[in-house]
């Protein structure tokens, strides 16, 4: 890898995708949903983690490179995969513990990493409805490390979500996931937004770094959270994109990013709704 030279011309959104991609290791098997998770996965595969295996919900297991698809299942994301099967098969891989890393979006997220993709307010009489779990619950329930990527705003980052679609650490007390019957050694490990990066310490979202390089301040981060967030002792500025990362990101993601997702009538891409 070339010597690190940091880029200067990038947005907070670019930082979010690139920071997410960095979470993927070369040896990982990564379950990616549509949207930002897919962009992070494809970027990692094109840059530093060319050996990682990408799992796509509809039955795709691929170790080989592929162009970023308009949706998760396209002829491009299917063709030349190492294995094609179905949704049941790839989720069994996950449930049995063979998917190291999950990437997902979300509607709301709370202090303990629980994600709501279902309803704002009361389920029976909601203020707003999202399309529901999709594969989100499965990813969060099964994957070794789950990384949530979503744009940060106060009304989406809550002390407690209105509806727990994809369980994080529930109320944060130890052992709650195991008590519920979720597989051991699973759960969210990071939240990556357009403002900051969070890890989980004692099952609580903890601010690790602020995207200072694109002008984000700690105050701005705090303003877009609904609770008094725990801050890591060694809080840092987020490492900016390197020039090389930005080059690959521009070429493989931005240039190929679908301007408009074509969908069949009634059909929707899988996974939770992208935060927008």
């Amino acid at each position: 890898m070339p010597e690190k030279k940091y880029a200067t011309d990038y947005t907070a959104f670019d930082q979010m995708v690139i920071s997410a991609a960095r979470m993927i290791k070369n040896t990982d098997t990564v379950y990616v949903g549509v949207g930002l998770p897919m962009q992070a996965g494809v970027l990692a595969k094109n840059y530093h983690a060319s050996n990682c295996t990408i799992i796509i919900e509809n039955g795709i297991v691929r170790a080989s490179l592929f162009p970023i698809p308009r949706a998760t299942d396209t002829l491009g994301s299917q063709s030349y995969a190492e294995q094609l099967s179905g949704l049941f098969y790839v989720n069994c891989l996950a449930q049995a513990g063979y998917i190291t890393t999950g990437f997902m979006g979300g509607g709301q997220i709370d202090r303990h990493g629980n994600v709501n993709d279902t309803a704002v307010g009361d389920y029976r009489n909601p203020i707003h409805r999202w399309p529901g779990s999709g594969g989100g619950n499965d990813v969060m329930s099964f994957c070794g490390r789950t990384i949530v990527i979503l744009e940060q705003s106060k009304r989406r980052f809550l002390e407690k979500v209105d509806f727990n679609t994809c369980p994080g650490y529930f109320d944060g007390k130890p052992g709650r996931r195991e008590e519920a019957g979720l597989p051991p050694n699973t759960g969210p490990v990071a939240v990556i937004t357009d403002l900051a990066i969070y890890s989980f310490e004692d099952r609580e979202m903890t601010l690790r770094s602020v995207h200072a390089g694109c002008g984000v301040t700690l105050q701005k981060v705090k303003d877009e959270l609904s609770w008094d967030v725990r801050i890591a002792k060694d809080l840092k500025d987020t490492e900016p994109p390197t020039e090389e990362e930005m080059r690959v990101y521009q070429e493989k993601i931005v240039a190929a990013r679908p301007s408009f997702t074509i969908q069949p009538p009634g059909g929707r891409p899988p996974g939770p709704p992208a935060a927008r």
Partner: protein
Amino acid sequence: MSSKVMTMSEAISKNVKSGDLLFIGGAQHGSPSAAVHEIVRQKIDHLTIIALLANTGLLVSEGLVDTVLTGYYQLDEKRSYQLQRARALGKFPRFVEYSHFGIAQALQAGYMGVPFMPTRSQIGSDMLKYNENIISIDDPFGTGKIGLVKAVVPDVGILHVQRCDAEGNAQRWGTLGVDHEGINASKKIIITTEKIVDGDVIRRDPNRTIISGFRVNAVVEQPFGAYPVHLAGCYNDGPGAIGMMTSEEAYNAYMQAAVWGVKDWNEYLENLKKVNGPDFLDKIKIQNPAKSDPVITGI
């Protein structure tokens, strides 16, 4: 011997009844669009549908659906003309929500002939509060909590495939979504196929058969039967589906073109070519085909 081969109209009218629970295959890939449009044309109502990213929205907007079993559905009425229309008709369906894997497991249990499937998905969520088909129990083998998803056994399963013989031995490839579980779980089965092939083609690649003829009630040859959804080895997504759901005007125009104004799917396809040019469908065909190496069997 080939009494199973029939028109789409016959296949639907003979096998789909008011009140049926339908499995409609092709989650995100190769949905049986032509068959769904024929159900609309025949106005078969009070359906329960399993909607896993397949092309089933028209059934809802036409007021034909009582219940939707789903893992993901556009439930924001402000953004969904389909739901607005169902509401206006007084036919807003009941939604029963699972995760995607939950739907797959319910169908797997149906395919296996057992009352439930054990699961570790969904049990950590609030979905259990509102969906009585998912429960959490203590594992009798002592490993702690485990979820159970209740079996779903569709009355009718409809699958679109690349090739099928006249007896209904059907082969499908590319991503399979929940097709294997869903079609094998179904009591009656309709196969729509791009092409009816000789049985010998099937028998020289028997591992690819997703459902055997003895389980199949109807076989319909329907080229571009999944349009505008892509189908591996056949065609890419068509442009036709965009925007049709955003207004009453666009919706009505689409319904006139695809359902009410034509006698069948083939007439709709012909009209598409008249409007968009004779090469309209050719343009979405596979441009860079990859051919599999043959596999050998025999004695």
